[in-house]
């Protein structure tokens, strides 16, 4: 993990988690150190600033649940939760997340203790090849939280009313997650079950 590189500036970086503390960190293009809290565990990583959050997760922390599909924010396979919000981890730099809390599919559940959304995907066969599935599940968990928080979507009819957990809402909100096997209808059934509302 590039031990020893950039440790001098690294010390400075890890103290910069606050929103206003800020100075030039490094004039070098390699060797920034950043502290990430991933699935509850803190890690100090020495990183080339070009490293995306996705690559930090996969290549440095060996959390290979988050997948690299398109690497351009189009497919959603890299979806992870940062401070509770779903993002495309391929379209953000790891150094921009000092002090942030990241949750990946590995942090949602384990084979012994599945997250309810994981269990529902298994029950409803919400996949075929499985490559997009970690991103689908992270996204789906966040979708239900977003509806709960009252965040509207493109298909929400009344902008001033609380959005409902309808199939149309789930489909619209999941549009950033592509499944090339076409398991969409089973994915909707799985999410609907967790949402507690019949499809």
């Amino acid at each position, binding site marked *: 993990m590039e031990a020893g590189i950039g440790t001098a500036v690294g010390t400075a970086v890890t103290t910069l988690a606050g*929103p206003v503390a800020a100075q030039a960190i490094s004039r070098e293009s390699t060797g920034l150190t950043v502290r990430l809290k991933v699935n509850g565990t803190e890690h100090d990583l020495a990183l080339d600033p*070009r490293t995306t959050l996705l690559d930090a997760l996969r290549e440095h922390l060996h959390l290979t649940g988050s997948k690299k599909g398109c690497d351009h924010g189009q497919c959603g396979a890299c979806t992870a939760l940062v401070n509770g919000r779903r993002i495309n981890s391929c379209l953000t730099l790891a150094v921009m997340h000092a002090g942030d809390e990241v949750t990946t599919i590995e942090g949602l559940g384990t084979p012994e203790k599945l997250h309810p959304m994981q269990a529902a995907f298994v029950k409803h066969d919400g996949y075929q090849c499985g490559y997009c599935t970690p991103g689908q599940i992270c996204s789906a968990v966040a979708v239900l939280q977003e509806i709960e928080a009252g965040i509207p979507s493109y298909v929400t009819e009344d902008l*001033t009313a609380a959005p409902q957990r309808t199939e149309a809402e789930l489909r619209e909100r999941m549009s950033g997650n592509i499944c090339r096997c076409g398991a969409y209808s089973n994915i909707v059934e799985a999410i609907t079950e967790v949402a507690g509302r019949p499809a």
Partner: protein
Amino acid sequence: MRPFTYERAASPAEAAAAAARNPGARFIAGGTNLLDLMKLQIETPSHLIDVNGLALDRIEPTPEGGLRIGALVRNTDLAADARVRRDYGVLSRALLAGASGQLRNKATTAGNMLQRTRCPYFYDTSQPCNKRQPGSGCAAIGGFSRQLAVIGGSEACIATHPSDMAVAMRALDAVVETVRPDGTTRSIPIAEFHRLPGETPHVETVLEPGELITAVTLPPPAGGVQIYRKVRDRASYAFALVSVAAVVQRDGTARVALGGVAHKPWRVEAAEAEIPRGAKAVTAAMLDGAKPTHDNAFKLRLVERTLGAVLAEAKG
């Protein structure tokens, strides 16, 4: 991605000054557009100035009765704000019509305003593009131009501005607030903010080198029926072929802006006098002088029909 150095800015003015000192610098906030382009080496900054810590993430009332939207307010948060949903519905609808949930959680108000075009030749580095490489030519003219501009283009460029949000902002007469490298601030009406391509399609806004957007301000609520209608090749998560942002009053007057047709959100105030005569007359006035290509001539009728649907919906 090309190598770059990275810093976090301490204040908006310092960020602007740092950018002016370093001609190869770019600001980064959400990063959803910039990093995409950096991976393709369409954008090759030598230095990134991270502005995420600049506390520009609040939506506050203005003394005039409008809203001041911090540059870093995420698209999701702007669309979900109760005041925006109630008083500026066209803006909320436009934001929700764009991108995906994941992208809206990251993308910022200022970054959305500064989005680069999705012209396929801008993205294809093996093709000439005056926007990507000034002076190299335009492969879109005579090429695959279905998505591209029908009005306001030039011999150098027929790209469109991809934002939905900015189209609603144009209908609402938003104002862009900035800070310059010398610390002075200015307010730029959105009508004057984006440029047409002309001979210099790589210069997309009137921002000066290093100038940083700090907020976008909305005037007091315009009332009326507010509609954003987007026509695209699939039902979600696609750029507009044509979009219409409209604020229609009970007396039949309206403000109308179009997306997907030009290098900037397209509004022709004089054309709004034609509203009582219907969509065909308004479209003729808005798109007077249009020069569509063989591939995108359909957009002229699509604007007319979409606008007609919007005006009918507004009447209830």
